[in-house]
């Protein structure tokens, strides 16, 4: 069984991103870049499925400029077998990304596409569901547990009310939530080995994808700032403030 794992290069989660001063974009020059945390969890899960003998090959794919080779190599250091870079603008929208992945699925015929539920830059949470629609397969989103048995994927999902378990016919799309696993750290020999693993590049033209923007970013602004508050000395002072100043308790 082949597993395809799409990954994204994003601003590291520790960086506090701000709008540019002209309010047209976000200021991420010189920001530390990393593999999106949810994507890293997807790579880890795919590698574990290979270690369990469920998967035979793990292919990572990233869509963006050539800088994403860094994240593709990092994913191969975690255990992915080979990588595909789809050369495109870094701001391709989820629908266009899903179309790229569908084209790749047609070429590679994986049984599972395992990807992060959202990337922490755009916070869209769309790509997996869109791919599942275009591919006409089942979707197991926000997964906190994945088991492959009897030719089906058993996916436990984190939902607002608790947990839900689905059985998906294969092929299927699975998107990861944070508690699915804790990714390993790459060891030096694996990092060295990853440098020699195959990394192919494809273009949007080769895949027949139109990357035109449909939702234009017209403005960026900082969120409403909160007034700096005060420190209270003790519980009595806190209760007094909540009752008489904020009037949020009776």
């Amino acid at each position, binding site marked *: 069984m082949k597993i395809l794992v799409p990954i994204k290069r994003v*601003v590291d989660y520790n960086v*506090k*991103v701000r709008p540019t001063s002209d309010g047209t974009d*976000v200021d991420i020059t010189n920001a530390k870049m990393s593999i999106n945390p949810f994507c890293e969890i997807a790579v880890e899960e795919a590698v574990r499925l290979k270690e369990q003998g469920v998967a035979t090959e793990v292919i990572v794919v990233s869509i963006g400029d050539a800088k994403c080779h860094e994240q593709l190599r990092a994913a191969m250091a975690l255990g992915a077998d080979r990588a595909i870079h789809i050369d495109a603008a870094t701001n391709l*929208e*989820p*629908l266009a990304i899903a179309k790229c992945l569908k084209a790749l699925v047609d070429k590679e015929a994986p049984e599972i596409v395992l990807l992060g*539920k959202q990337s*922490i830059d755009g*916070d*869209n949470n*769309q790509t997996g*569901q*869109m*791919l*599942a*629609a*275009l591919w006409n397969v*089942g*979707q*197991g*989103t*926000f997964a906190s547990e994945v088991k492959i048995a009897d030719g089906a994927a058993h996916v436990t999902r*984190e*939902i*607002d*009310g*608790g*947990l*839900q*378990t*689905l*059985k998906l*016919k294969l092929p*299927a799309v699975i998107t990861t*939530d*944070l*508690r699915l696993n804790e990714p390993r750290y790459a060891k030096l020999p694996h990092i060295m080995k990853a440098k020699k693993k195959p990394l192919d590049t494809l273009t949007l033209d080769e895949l027949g994808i139109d990357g035109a923007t*449909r939702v*234009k*970013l*017209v*403005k*960026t602004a900082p*969120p409403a700032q*909160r007034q*700096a*508050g*005060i*420190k*209270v000395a*003790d*519980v*009595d002072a*806190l*209760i007094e403030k*909540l009752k008489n100043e*904020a009037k*949020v*308790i009776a």
Partner: protein
Amino acid sequence: MKTLVIAEHDNQQLKPATLNTLAAAAKLNQPIDILVAGANCGAVVSQAQAASGVTEVLVADSDYLTHQLPEDIAPIIQANIGDYTHVLAPATTTGKNLLPRVAALLDVQAISDIQNVLDANTFERPIYAGNVIATVESSDSIKVMTVRTTSFDPVAATGGSASTRTLEAGSASGLAEFVSEELAQSDRPELTAANIVISGGRGLGNGENFELLYTLADKLNGAVGASRAAVDAGFVPNDMQVGQTGKIVAPDLYIAVGISGAIQHLAGMKESKIIVAINKDEDAPIFQVADYGLVADLFDVIPELTSKL
């Protein structure tokens, strides 16, 4: 030019998030219909008819829709898209699961988590864990959007008198099958709808200590939430997580107990009206957003607070 709102429900109750979504829809100034898709969901249909501002309730009531799987519901929306120019659902795990699938079937780019409607094509939404508010303009003919419910005050649940229209029944996709569900049972108000939320973090130390927060919450008729660290450590279940990747809350009063205030946590609660932080580290970043900060050991002050209220 009409708007379709997707009702969130459990076949018995229309979820309050639907009323906030109707409020976002109302800002588009065009007729609003609601889709109720489920099984034996007549009670929900009646509630949807009564909701303020609804013209027509589209009803897809069939056994195969019991668990409302997106593989089954997305094609129903696609088949009935007619002259709807906007399709809205709450940005809950249900809405987030369904709407991108609908958008892809309609070949449009979905817009997630809108927090403001500027005009029929232009919306505001948070990106980068809410550190940036983006204004985005869609050129697609149909806008498929999830709505950040805390940004819109709910419409009235009663007073409406919408008509109903039964949709032609489809059949199960066979792609996905419901196996089981483990839903948290609680007598406390729902986290996203509560006026008061008390959240605990890693500082609580273990699951038993959350009892301190439950006791306080019961005194205040509040809900209890948690940071990711508390959920990951197994103190409490995942449905209590507040933050970028958990629930978004905006109560009148949010009390953060033993929570440091990471960006990802703030993303889920910084729209609260009043924020109280209780933390023994006076430099914890949570104090930068707190209206009232109390530098103290939670194990001393939470019991004291509970007894004095």
